């Protein structure tokens, strides 16, 4: 009974999400990968809001990045959690927004959460990204190669879904992610710490105040300081900066 109710909710949310996206046709930037999605998304939101204004750009609130979460993020609604009554209200609000809502951001930055085989397809049935960023394909378990190959398959679907006039941003620090380039119709831009990356970080240093590096992209060099720790912040910053410069 519970599962049937969940399936009905999923079905209607998916339908209404496709409707609202068809009506407003926003530019969609999708971020996927094992980790670092939220940081990439947050940096992109920051940079794009600087460029286009606060109201024109929206991202997933909380961790709304799954088959139920993603429609909620796009329709800008809260979860009904475990209450059937709340979910019915959510569906009603979703219907009103999808059919009659006038205001909608011009750009959506969406995390696509993928944990296992089959997760990406329902997400791509709702959204067709103009830009896709793939952060990494990493495992949380020892000896997890088979599950990583499954995730690779899901990322391949995302890569293939981006049209020719779109962009795919791939972390060149991750061999699996880098190898996705061969499946792309869209223009591929790589980012990372290695010399072969199209957009790269050089002269990386960490100190008590955070991290510094030189960002090199399209023959330009920019000195950057991030007041946080971890190379993933630098990768996220670069992915966001490239996104800002290409759209």
């Amino acid at each position, binding site marked *: 009974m519970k599962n049937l109710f969940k399936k009905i909710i999923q079905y209607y949310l998916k339908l209404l999400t496709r409707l609202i996206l068809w009506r407003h046709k926003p530019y969609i930037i999708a971020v996927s990968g094992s*980790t670092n999605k939220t940081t990439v998304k947050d940096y992109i939101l920051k940079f794009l809001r600087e460029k286009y204004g606060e109201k024109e750009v929206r991202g997933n609130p909380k961790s709304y990045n799954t088959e139920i979460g993603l429609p909620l993020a796009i329709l800008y609604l809260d979860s009904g959690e475990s209450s059937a009554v709340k979910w019915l209200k959510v569906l009603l609000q979703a219907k009103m927004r999808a059919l009659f809502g006038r205001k909608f951001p011009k750009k959506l930055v969406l995390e696509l959460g993928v944990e296992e085989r089959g997760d990406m397809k329902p997400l791509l049935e709702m959204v067709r990204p103009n830009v896709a960023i793939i952060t990494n394909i*990493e*495992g949380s*378990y020892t000896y997890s190669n088979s599950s990583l190959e499954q995730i690779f398959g899901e990322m391949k679907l995302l890569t293939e879904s981006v049209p020719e006039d779109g962009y795919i941003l791939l972390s060149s620090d991750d061999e699996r992610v880098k190898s996705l380039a061969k499946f792309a119709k869209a223009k591929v831009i790589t980012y990372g710490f290695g010399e072969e990356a199209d957009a790269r970080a050089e002269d990386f240093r960490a100190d*008590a105040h955070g991290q510094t590096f030189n960002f090199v992209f399209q023959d330009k060099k920019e000195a950057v300081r991030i007041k946080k720790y*971890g*190379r993933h912040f630098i990768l996220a910053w670069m992915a966001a900066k490239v996104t800002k410069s290409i759209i």
Partner: protein
Amino acid sequence: MELRASRIPGVISLAQGVPSFDTPDAIKNAAIEAIQKGKVAKYSLAPGTLEFRETIAQHLERENKFFDFENEIIATAGSIEAITATLLAILEPGDEVLIPDPTYTSYQPAIKVARGVPVFVSLDEENHWALDIEKFEKLITPRTKAFLFCNPNNPTGTVFSRNQLHALAQLAIKHNLYIMSDEVYKDFVYFENQGSTFPLSDKSSNSSRSNLQLYSLAELRGIRDRLIYIFSFSKAYAMTGWRIAFLATHQELAKKILAVHDALVTCAPVVSQYAGMAALELANEDVLRFKEYFQKRRDFTCKRLDKLNHVFKYQKPNSSYFVFPRIKEEMLRKIAPNGGSRQFAIELLKKAKVATVPGSAFGPSGENHVRMCFGRSEEDINTAFDRMEKFFNEQGTKINNQ
């Protein structure tokens, strides 16, 4: 004391520091889902799943604490594993670790397991059990390796002030020491607009409200190479049985601790890592609800203690769910002529059927005190105090009803 209490039928326990609540549903459901999806049967990476560590780092960031989830965070089997693994990683046999007196009882055995020597530094009882920095410095020797303390402090419920913590950090830099900051009770801090619940040092210095907020040394970037931040899910999310906690520290030190952690437990329980992740993402409102209950129970407990003012003298705790009253000398002599707080607690257990923890368990300065936990249900607290009142009455004393 808890073991002794379990053998006596009908005992009400104010001894063990366990919240009366069950783990919130959202956490349990996430754990069940993880089990059903087959995510928990295998070892995770030694420091924990990437998702869990990333969630922890994002959560810490909101508290102004910045750590690299890939290299600086380790999920552990409870905070005591984090503490023991750290001590094993940093201590040579005979190294000394300064701990406040009184403090959490398990610090001493953990230091001894790592073949270190615990050195007590008495807190200033008259000043709401504040840190006495001069005493700390006097006890530093060439063998001193670290400070280990919990903030808020168990058993006194003291929140150490920003100024005191900064002074401690300066000492650590000056003498090249590690600081282990165990912040298991950080979510249960009861600030009030005015009144007597703030540490005296803060009141006397006319500090601003921001100075009275719980401050963590993990926010201080200048000591991140020597600071080990420890947090457990046990108390805040009512998850004592899940055995899940984490530590965060500079990557160089994290590498050393990880080697010990790997040898001790391989990885923290994977099902509990999923539960911990759900706790951070979904259970914030539950923590606030627990805090509200604890604050009410604290006030209720203090009212009941006020009625026993011929037996106990106490300071209203700012935090945690413990109160640490001093037993008045006359009463102590009467009930436990030769035995101090331990004998007092045993008598209370045997004759009033109320379990408390003798203050001596927390260090020499804890003698003549008992620890009472107000994390128990209101009904339990009420019954325990009814019994204590009756017991003290039977000792030929009068209850002061004022």
